[in-house]
Every structure is written in C-alpha cells, then in structure tokens.
C-alpha cells in the first residue's frame, strides 16, 4: 500500500461545491433564499433549483454527524426526549442535532426550513421523520409527494399520472408560494439537460469497475462520488464539470492500471472483488473501509450508491417531459424496487463486474434496506453459486458498531473466498 495520498482535482472540486452550499445555507436568511428540507431517495432537486431555493437533506446531515463523531450524543439526546432505542437512528440523530442548535458539518448553523418537501421514496420512516420535523418547525408548510412502489416489477402509466398530478397540484403550487417565483418549465428543462449528462457520467464511472484492477472502490469511495448528485447538485453545471473531471481521472487510472485510492493511498493488490448490499456505517467509516483494503478487497458495485437513483438499467431523465421524468426518477430509486428487482440488479452487478463474493452490511436502523436482505442473499447464493457474507452495524449509532465482531466475520468470509479461488484455480 502506497502511503502517498495526493488529493485529486475532483476531490477539491467536490469540497468546494459542498463548502459553497453550506455557506449559501448559512447566509440564506440574509440573501432571502428559501430553504427546502427533503430526502435523498427520490430527491427532486432539479425542481427545487428551478425555483431558486436551497435544499437541505437531513440524512446527509445525519451521516456527516456520524462521521464527525457527533451522532452518539445527538441520538442520546433524542432518546432522552422520548425516542425509542428501536427506531431509525437517522431520525434521532437529526432530532438531536436540532436540539443542539442545528449546526452543520462546516460549523455553520443550518437554517430552519421554509418548506418540508416529503418526496418519500422507498421508505416509510420518511413520513414519520417529517411528522416529527413538522412539530419541531410549527407552521412550516409540508408538500407531500407519494411515490408508488414498483410492486409489479414496473412503472405503470397510472403510477406516473398519480405522481405528475401531485407535482402539478400539490408540490409546485406550494413551491411557488414559498419561493414567490412562478414555475418555469423551460428553466426546469435546462436543468434536466444537465442531469441527463450527469447520469451518463455516473453510469460510465461505476462501469469502470469492469477493469482489473478496478480503478475505483464503488462503495467506500462510491459514497463520495454520489455526494454531489445526492446533495442538491444534480442538474447544475458544476455537477457536469465535477463528473467530467472525475471520469477523466478514472480513465487515467485505468490507463496506468492503478487500483482504487484509499485513505492510505493506492491499493496495490486486488485480491477480492465484492458486491455489497446495504448502507455503510458512518461512525467508524475509516476503520470499516480499512478492514477491506487491508485484505485487498475492492467493492466493484454496491446497492447503496443507487439509493439516490438507479441509472444502470437504462433510465435517464427526459428534459422534454420534465414532470414525468421526475416522477419516473423517483420511482426508479433502489429502495423503491421490489425484492425481485433488487435481486436482478444485484445479480447483474455480480456478473458484469466479475465479483468473487456478495456481502450484506445489514443496518439495524433501516427496515427499508434490511427487511428481506437475508432472502436476497439466499437467492443470489442459489442463483449464482457465489459465496455470500453477512455483517451487521448501524448507520450513525456508534453503539452498534462492533469492530471485533465485524472483523471476525469478514476474516472468515475472506478465507472462504480464498479457498474458493484455490479450488477454481485447480
């Protein structure tokens, strides 16, 4: 492992983008910009941008709090305010952060919302989360966008029509009222044209893991790559530039036959290629990642990088049909796919990216991901005869990250992969 960790240009661009966003949020009251709280899966940030409003994603705040080791305290505070130990820790982390002054990752206060946009896709807890926020911010209007589930393996015209009507008659009028701006379809189309380019880049970037060695880690680094599209930049020219730069860097790595960059430099030997299902743990992110790169394990695809949109099955926004496109985008997010579709998507990843093993990181907090994961695992094992592994942790509750437990399980899993490789080679 090389210890040289030089920051690539794309990393610097991303950092600047995020700093600017949080600065804009910090200045929102002075600049008069209105602030919309919304969620990552099914985030219709293009529509928010078309009204010149600023998005805030409570999940992103929660994960940032996890990475900054603040979430444990926030969760305890929320529990002292009556929240159960048993529920999603993102919600409790967000409530705790608010009880502690709502200070964001850059140290600036995150402004209160002017609109709560509940575009809930793939997770019922979002409903409950916003019911809670509605009480913490009394009087703030709520715009609800119900995203039907792909229960029958497809998006029907009725599902799209239902969503478009909600957009036209519930969401847009509320956005017009809050922002004081009229809905401008041409502006939205222009933003969506950028989104469509960004989506192309996302697919190309995550498809580079076909190479050996894989030039990127599609989980641990992947969560950084999806940062801009999941925090309000999808549809912006900055996002197009960022992804163009990132893609260029990755192509250079492929030319040079370089493996992925880790916090300790380049991974030199690729020993295992894995597909991972489930979100990562944020409170011990670095330690968690290290357990993989120390063993030469690279993640060649992950479902988590698809929570904010699934593009590798062909979906792209169509700027000529802006509202229909936004609706279909929401319905296409990973946790809005039914279990069979999830199995299919994961099998495709395993096959296309020549994975040696499939690993589930099951998150205590998250019923949306976790319920059914064991069956997904069984199905893939049976269908593809691939070794499967299972670990458990939580998103932002440090009490549920057991380093030794995870290490032991991963070691056994890697041993199993090693043995299998030997058998296959023989």
């Amino acid at each position, binding site marked *: 492992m090389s210890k040289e960790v030089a920051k690539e240009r794309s990393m610097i661009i991303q950092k600047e983008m995020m700093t600017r966003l949080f600065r804009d949020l910090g200045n929102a009251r002075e600049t008069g910009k209105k602030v919309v709280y919304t969620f990552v899966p099914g985030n219709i940030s293009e529509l928010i941008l078309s009204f010149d409003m600023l998005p805030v994603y409570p999940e992103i705040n929660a994960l940032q709090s996890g990475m900054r080791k603040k979430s444990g305290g926030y969760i305890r505070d929320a529990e002292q*305010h*009556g*929240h*159960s130990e*048993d*529920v*999603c820790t993102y*919600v409790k982390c967000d409530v705790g952060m608010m009880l502690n002054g709502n200070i964001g990752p850059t140290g600036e206060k995150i402004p209160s919302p002017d609109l709560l946009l*509940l575009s*809930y896709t793939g*997770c*019922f*807890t979002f*409903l*409950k*989360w*916003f*019911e*809670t926020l*509605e*009480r913490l911010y009394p009087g703030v209007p*709520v715009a*609800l966008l*119900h995203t*039907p*589930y792909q*229960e029958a393996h497809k998006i029907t015209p*009725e*599902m799209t*029509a*239902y969503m478009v*009507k*909600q957009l036209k*008659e*519930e969401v847009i009028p509320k956005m017009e009222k809050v922002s004081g701006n009229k809905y401008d379809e041409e502006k939205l189309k222009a933003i969506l044209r950028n989104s469509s380019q960004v989506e192309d880049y996302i697919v190309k970037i995550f498809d580079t893991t076909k190479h050996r060695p894989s030039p990127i880690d599609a989980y641990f680094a992947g969560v950084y790559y999806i940062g801009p599209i999941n925090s309000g930049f999808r549809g912006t020219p900055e996002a197009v530039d960022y992804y163009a730069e990132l893609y260029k860097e990755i192509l250079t790595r492929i030319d040079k036959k370089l493996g992925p960059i880790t916090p300790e430099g380049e991974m030199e030997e690729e020993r295992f290629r894995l597909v991972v299902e489930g979100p990562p743990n944020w409170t011990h992110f670095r330690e968690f990642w290290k357990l993989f790169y120390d063993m030469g394990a690279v993640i060649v695809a992950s479902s988590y990088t698809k929570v904010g949109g699934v593009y590798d099955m062909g979906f792209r926004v169509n700027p000529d049909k802006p509202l229909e496109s936004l609706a279909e985008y929401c319905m296409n997010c990973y*946790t809005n796919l*039914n*279990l*069979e579709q*999830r*199995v299919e998507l994961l099998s495709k990843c395993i096959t296309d990216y020549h994975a040696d093993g499939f690993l589930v990181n*099951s998150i*205590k907090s998250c*019923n*949306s991901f*976790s*319920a*059914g*994961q*064991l*069956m997904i695992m069984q*199905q893939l094992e049976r269908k593809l005869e691939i070794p499967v592994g299972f670990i*458990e942790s939580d998103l932002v509750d440090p009490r549920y990250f057991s380093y030794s437990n995870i290490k032991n399980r991963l070691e056994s899993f890697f041993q199993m992969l090693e043995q299998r490789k030997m058998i296959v080679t023989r």
Partner: protein
Amino acid sequence: MNTLKEIAALCEDLAFDLSFARAREWKSQEAGRVVVGHMPIYFPREIIHAANGLAVGILGGGDKKLIIKGDAYYQSYICHMPRSIVELVLDKHFEGFDGFIFPSICDVIRNLSGMFQLMGEGKFVKYLDLPQNFKAHIGGTFYRHELQTVMDEVFKLNGVVITAERLNHSIGLFNLNRRLICQLYDIRQDFPWRMTAADLYHIVRAGYVIPVEEHNGILEQAVRLIQQETGDPMDKIRVLVMGAFCEQPPAGLIRTIELAGCYIVEDDFLLGARWIQGDIGTGSADPLEAITSAYLEKSTFSSSVYDVGNPKEARLLDLIRKRKIDGVIFAAPSFCDPALLDHPILQKECNDKNIRFISFLYSENTGQFKVIKEQVGTFSDSIKLWD
C-alpha cells in the same frame, strides 16, 4: 350460545386457528370460491366478498406458533410478526389460499410482499399502495385503480363479474359488521365489567377468518347479550391502549392489563375492522367509487398515514374525551417504526395536557407479563390515588 363467555370462547378458537379451517371449509363448499389473505392494517374486504371470495386477515402466528425457520429470514432487529408469517408459509398453513394482499403500511410489510413473490406463494401477490394523497381526482383515482387491479386478479381466477348490485350487497354486509363492532365498543364503554377486553378482542378477531355473514350473526348475539347486566363494576381506571395496530399483543397481555386494575375501553388492536368511520353508501351505481371515497373521507387515524392537516394529537384528545379515559397505555411491538415514532409526539401532548400515560414494548409471542403487570398496576394505583 347463551352467554358472552361461550361466544368469546368459540371466537377465540376461530381467531387463533392457524390452519384457517373455516376458510378452507367455506372454499370447498362451492366451486369458484377464492380465499385471499391480507396483512394489516386495512383492506376493503368488500371487493373480495363481491367476487365470491373470502378475505382472511393474516396477523402472524402470535404466541401459538413456534418459530424455527422464520428467524433465518429476519435479523433480530426487525419486528416479530413477519417471521411468524414466513414460518406459516414454510409450514404450508396458507395452502389453498389464492392470493395475498399487502397494504402499504411500512417497509417490513412492503418487503414481505417481495418475499412472497420470491417464494411463489399464492396465485397472485399484490402490494396495495394506499394513497397518501386524499384528493379524489389524485389519490382517489390512483386508489381506485389499485383496487381494480385486485379485482382483475380475482377475476382471472374465478371469472366472477362484480356487478354494482353484488358490490353494494357486500358493502351493506360490512357496514353492518362495523356498526355491530362499534356498538359493542360503545356499550362496553359504559359497562366494561360486562365483558373483558380479551373477550371483545377475540370476538372481533374471529371476523378476520370467517365469512362476514357468520360474523355478523355472532356480533348480533353479542350485542344482545352485552345489554344484559352481568358481573359487578370494579374500581379500575379506564385506559386507552395505543400502538398495537399491526403485530398483535398476545391475549395474555390484554388480560394482564385488565387484571392489573384497568378497563381497556378503547384500543387500536384490530384497527382495520373499524377503519372506515361510518357507513359506505350502498345505493350507488358506482360502488367502487363509494369505497374509494370512504377511504379518502372516512378513514380513521393510523400511524401509517401522514397526518398533515389532521394532527394525531387532536385525534388522541378526541378519543380520550369520547371514552372518558383516565390514562393512556402506549404499547407497541418492538422495532415498529410507525408506532414508535408516533409516541414522542403523542406523549408530549399527554404531558402538555396532564394526561397520565405509560409505555412498554411487546412482541406477539411475549410470554412473561410480570413486569408489565407491575408497571400497569402501579400506573392504575397512582391514578386512583391521586386523581
């Protein structure tokens, strides 16, 4: 049956018959009949009835089913009911069921629908996406289409055309069913000593697994009998139990609460049976529209429906007033996000309004009630002593 106790005992047997014998027997009595299982909380059973079908409520294995294989399908931090449902599938308890409906109430039930699909259980599996938009031309249109999809699935199985007349007839039977259940609750509110909450629970729950006509007969008898004086009033507090709308508390827990100094005069145990508040019109040329409008306009409160513009606190207070409640018991299944995320909101309201409450968690197979009994006993004593 001459007494409420006899009725309740029969209903208890029916309600917890995990072989679903009565449903199977009913199906076998006539060609073309279908049996469709549905998960909590609410499903308009009228549309299955009108298609010559029986909608059977699936509420898990409770404390009657030992979990051996189901645990391999769920992590420890997911509520208990889905694993007992999977156990029932694997042990073939649903053999002969034609289809399954999964109303959209939470991610666990949603993903369970996918597991049924993957296991190939039933001839159809339908996740019924209940709209969160309550405008007729938006959520109503969508919901109507969802119901039509269910009706189309059943039609594929038995070819029964649901005419307006048939559907109106079914609506009438379920209107009567809800009216009778509400009557039982209303009478019991004034005379809770005449029938235990567990007996009432069993009588209502039997309706989930037998034809509505038979259940209406049972309810009519129960309503007649509860009007006669039996037993003696006791010095107990009047409580509302909330949070138990999906995974059901074991009957032992319901009994424990009443043995520990409480009368449960309101609850959300089998909320689906009373989901629609009032009657659905029976004279419409378009009865599916009537069912749709009833969902939009007459649904009760639920943790699975966003309460924008209809705050849950206000509805809790209404119930407390209506049922003259002394204290609230928040009882929720472990790991149930919908119920548990409501509790801080509702408990804050109780605190603000000086309403006493306690809370605890259970699972459908909880077998030890000692701690809960002590907790409830102390709660009841404190209210009796100080209020």
